[in-house]
């Protein structure tokens, strides 16, 4: 307990260890770890240990039925992985996941950027508009998916009622159960596209929130001098605002990519993974519950995590390389 213990955290020399440590610093470390212990304990028990066990399970032959009598370490096998890569539909599922993720992330960040630009300057009713934009994100996923299902229902949904009455659709579209349809004469995967639209709708508030916060923190002088130099609004956006937003957009892209790639609830609740929307996480869930095949589910989950790590790694390399040059 001394002044030394209360220095601001920025003065952080702790990474350059091991330096000679005073008793005070030792005491501080002890208190620090002591205060962190409850948090770490929960995280270790509920997150870290289970992850390690997933890896073990992926290399064992385990089914739900033998759970009660199995020990932690059964015979090791590569069968699960072989089955994952060899099983019908695996590569389709992975491809669907990639399309779903890229589409959903791009749409949500694009909409979020548009929304943030639109409400950037104050106007009457802005607080209300801003709060409304956040609704899709904070609403419980079960409620949000159900109301979408209802709106899109071919028999009594409002969208089909309007589409057939005002837009001249010759028949109602079963948005969530139609594998493919045509949009302006181009064949499209209807259900997958609908799920991507849902993703964009539900998560644009996330991008909006962070982009707006960043925009409001931008120093005004750059834009003002550009204004004085006669830059038009689009030029100011292109050359002044956008470059300053890029780091935030890059971070958002990684975050949204990781979270969307492994998203389960949205697709499961909207389509149950049918009609060409089966993403990897829904497949893992099916392996686990309806087939009771824990080994295969773990192997599939492991593949998911590795694929994710590869995508993020490649992305960070691209972005990081671009920035350092």
């Amino acid at each position, binding site marked *: 307990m001394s002044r030394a213990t209360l220095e601001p955290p920025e003065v952080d020399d702790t990474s350059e260890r091991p330096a000679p440590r005073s008793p005070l610093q030792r005491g501080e470390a002890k208190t620090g770890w002591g205060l962190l212990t409850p948090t770490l304990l929960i995280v270790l028990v509920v997150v870290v240990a289970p992850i390690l*066990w997933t890896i073990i399970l992926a290399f064992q032959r385990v089914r739900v039925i033998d759970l009660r009598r199995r020990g932690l370490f059964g015979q090791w096998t590569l069968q699960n992985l072989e089955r994952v890569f060899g099983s019908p539909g695996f590569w389709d599922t992975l491809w669907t996941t990639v399309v779903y993720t890229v589409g959903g992330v791009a749409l949500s960040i694009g909409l979020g950027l548009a929304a943030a630009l639109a409400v950037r300057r104050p106007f009457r009713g802005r607080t209300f508009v801003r709060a409304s934009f956040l609704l899709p994100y904070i609403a419980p996923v079960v409620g949000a998916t159900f109301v979408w299902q209802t709106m899109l229902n071919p028999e009594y949904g409002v969208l089909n009622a309007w589409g057939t009455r005002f837009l001249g659709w010759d028949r109602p579209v079963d948005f969530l159960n139609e594998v493919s349809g045509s949009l302006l004469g181009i064949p499209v995967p209807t259900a997958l596209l609908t799920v991507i639209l849902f993703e964009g709708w539900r998560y644009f508030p996330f991008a909006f929130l962070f982009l707006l916060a960043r925009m409001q923190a931008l120093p005004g002088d750059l834009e003002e001098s550009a204004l004085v130099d006669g830059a038009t609004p689009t030029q100011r956006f292109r050359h002044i605002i956008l470059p300053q937003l890029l780091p935030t957009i890059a971070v958002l892209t990684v975050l949204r990519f990781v979270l969307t790639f492994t998203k389960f609830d949205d697709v499961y609740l909207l389509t149950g993974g049918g009609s060409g929307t089966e993403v990897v996480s829904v497949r893992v869930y099916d392996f686990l519950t309806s087939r009771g095949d824990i080994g295969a589910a773990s192997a599939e989950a492991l593949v998911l995590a590795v694929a994710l790590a590869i995508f993020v790694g490649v992305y960070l390399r691209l972005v990081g390389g671009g920035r350092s040059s």
Partner: protein
Amino acid sequence: MNTATWDRDRIEKVVLNVLRWVTIAVLTVISLFPFYYMILLSIRLIQDVQLSPGSIVVTPGEIAFGAYQEVLKSVENGGQGFVRLIGVSAAVAVATVVVTLAVSIPGAYAVTRLRFYGRRQVDSLFLAIYLFPAIVLAIPLYVVLSRLGLRGSLVALVLVYVAQTVPVTLYMLRGYFETIPVSLEEAAQLDGNGRLGVIWRVSLPLSRPALAATALYVFMIAWNEYLFALLFLVERRDRWTVSLGLSQLAGTIEIPTTVLMAGSVLLTAPIVALFFAGERLLVEGLTGGAEKG
């Protein structure tokens, strides 16, 4: 009108101004309409909905609360027993808030104010946990809890929620603790308080807005959660949360859409109400780091 003044700058300004209002209008409508539609259907009769699916207004004479009655009535009385589900969800969410705050306040204080070896590693650990896929975590937890016979335990569910919310909680609280002047804490230390005393008497009273925001965030996550509730509780009907109960309702026999929508309103309304009550706090708490750049 003088055409010479219609240069690029002027045209862009006019076009962008129009576009801006169109964007605001369209996004507000697509954000709000589904929720309006949810409420609308929950107070209409199913026959009316089937007769005129395209109608989006309801006349006072058409309003019916039958769907709510059916959803709220207990199962024994032929309803869907949502009163009980709401109780379970609320209890789980409140317990998650209490435990999360209790463990993450000292933790956040430690990573803000104390210098010790391994602090940075703790940061990366929590970021990794925040990003780690829930579905991958679900498998071993399902296996372990099945083995221990604890699947269906609400305590286990709360612990999983705590682990899921701790990373963001720590981040939010830390952002706030950093703004508290160190001199105040020093003064409390000179008065003979230990670390916990400083946290209790100085940091906490000064960070009430941050605590409220964090509690709100955790409550929302726990109330909205679906995957783990589904995996752990699906066989224990008496312990279903609102999300789970509603999704199971949709999967069963002929339940009218109006009843589903009434259930959705009951699930969504508390969160929206809480959110509007604490919107400013929450937005500032979540984006504090972004503003600092």
